[in-house]
């Protein structure tokens, strides 16, 4: 195509049009973000509270921090008049991605309860059976370290191992907190 380039028509107008479109779209995104931000934070907080209550029911959860392997890790102290336990959020890689787990540990070192926060990367109907309460029930009362070989679901070895790993790192953190 031999054609003389018209600066205004071929260069300026397309560039300016695209620029305007980008600016308008960005403004729309900023507005949506501003509108949904509060709702998002609220939803996240609500969800966290719900999980915390499932793990150890208490009136108040105090956020704490501990250094572990050079990283600051947040955990919660469940307080209901007295200290009812410690709650840790840990994760380990499963079959499709990270499985994140919330573990509640009583002051005496026994596991109060384990809840799966996120297993959405695990295979549907197979790996995600780790969210089954009947499976998680068996962690209750265990202490020290959970045996890696035990507590796996047939066909969901990777996902189950991820839960065990995550629970064990919570138990490790607990030892650290207790000193």
């Amino acid at each position: 195509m031999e054609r003389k380039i018209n600066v205004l028509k071929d260069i300026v107008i397309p560039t300016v049009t695209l620029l305007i479109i980008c600016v308008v779209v960005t403004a729309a995104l900023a507005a949506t973000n501003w509108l949904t931000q509060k709702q998002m934070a609220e939803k996240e907080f609500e969800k966290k509270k719900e999980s915390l209550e499932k793990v150890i029911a208490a009136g108040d959860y105090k956020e704490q921090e501990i250094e572990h392997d050079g990283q600051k890790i947040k955990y919660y102290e469940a307080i209901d008049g007295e200290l009812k336990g410690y709650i840790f959020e840990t994760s380990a890689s499963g079959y499709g991605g990270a499985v994140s787990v919330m573990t509640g540990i009583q002051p005496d070192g026994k596991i109060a309860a384990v809840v799966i926060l996120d297993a959405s990367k695990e295979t549907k109907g197979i790996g995600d059976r780790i969210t089954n309460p009947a499976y998680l029930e068996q962690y209750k009362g265990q202490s020290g370290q959970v045996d890696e070989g035990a507590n796996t679901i047939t066909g969901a070895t990777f996902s189950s191992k991820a839960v065990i790993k995550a629970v064990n790192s919570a138990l490790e953190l607990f030892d650290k907190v207790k000193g």
Partner: protein
Amino acid sequence: MSSLRQEFSKGLILENPVLRLVLGTCPTLAISTAAINGMGMGVAATLVLLGSNVVISLLRKVIPDRVRIPAYITIIAGFVSIVQMLMKAYLPTLDKALGIYLPLIVVNCIILGRAEGFASKNSVLASAVDAIGMGAGFTAALVSMGIIREFLGAGTFFSLPVTSQFIEPIKVMVLPPGGFFVFGILIAVANSLARRKGRKPVDSLGCHGCAGCEACPAGQSEEGKLNE
């Protein structure tokens, strides 16, 4: 009026984006493990499609030809991000289930295909109707795949237990191979339904079956014409 109805209904069977045009296959296979995921993905894509079709149709005389593709992508990406933010704020569980496939709506060829192939040349109303029709076809395909795979592979219907208590489900149906089984069978069903209406199946694999044909240099070249 009758043409508007045609614009709507063509997306359902005759030009069903998933089953007849075979567009957007990746999210279709990945998402349709459960009916509710298919529904969420379908509705999200329909909202994006509706927004982008309407805006692109409104701007079709303003956007210079040279920059139309970046302009379309910017608009589509904007709508996808808005839908994602809204979903994160109001339906966080669905957002988690859809995972990476929600932001990937940006590059879903159904959306760009409709923008380029339809909205850029038709009125706002027709484009909106086209978007709703295509979106409905996409949603219908995803939900039916989701229902079949979820029922066979997990024994549930929209997460409600049906046979899961007494029959061990056929796990493979929620895995990728099961997705292909159901996909193939649904394509066959859609083809036979479309044929019953007395039309030839869309030649989706040929160069001219592509939604972007009219704008594509290859489609307009002599060679492209020969392929027809």
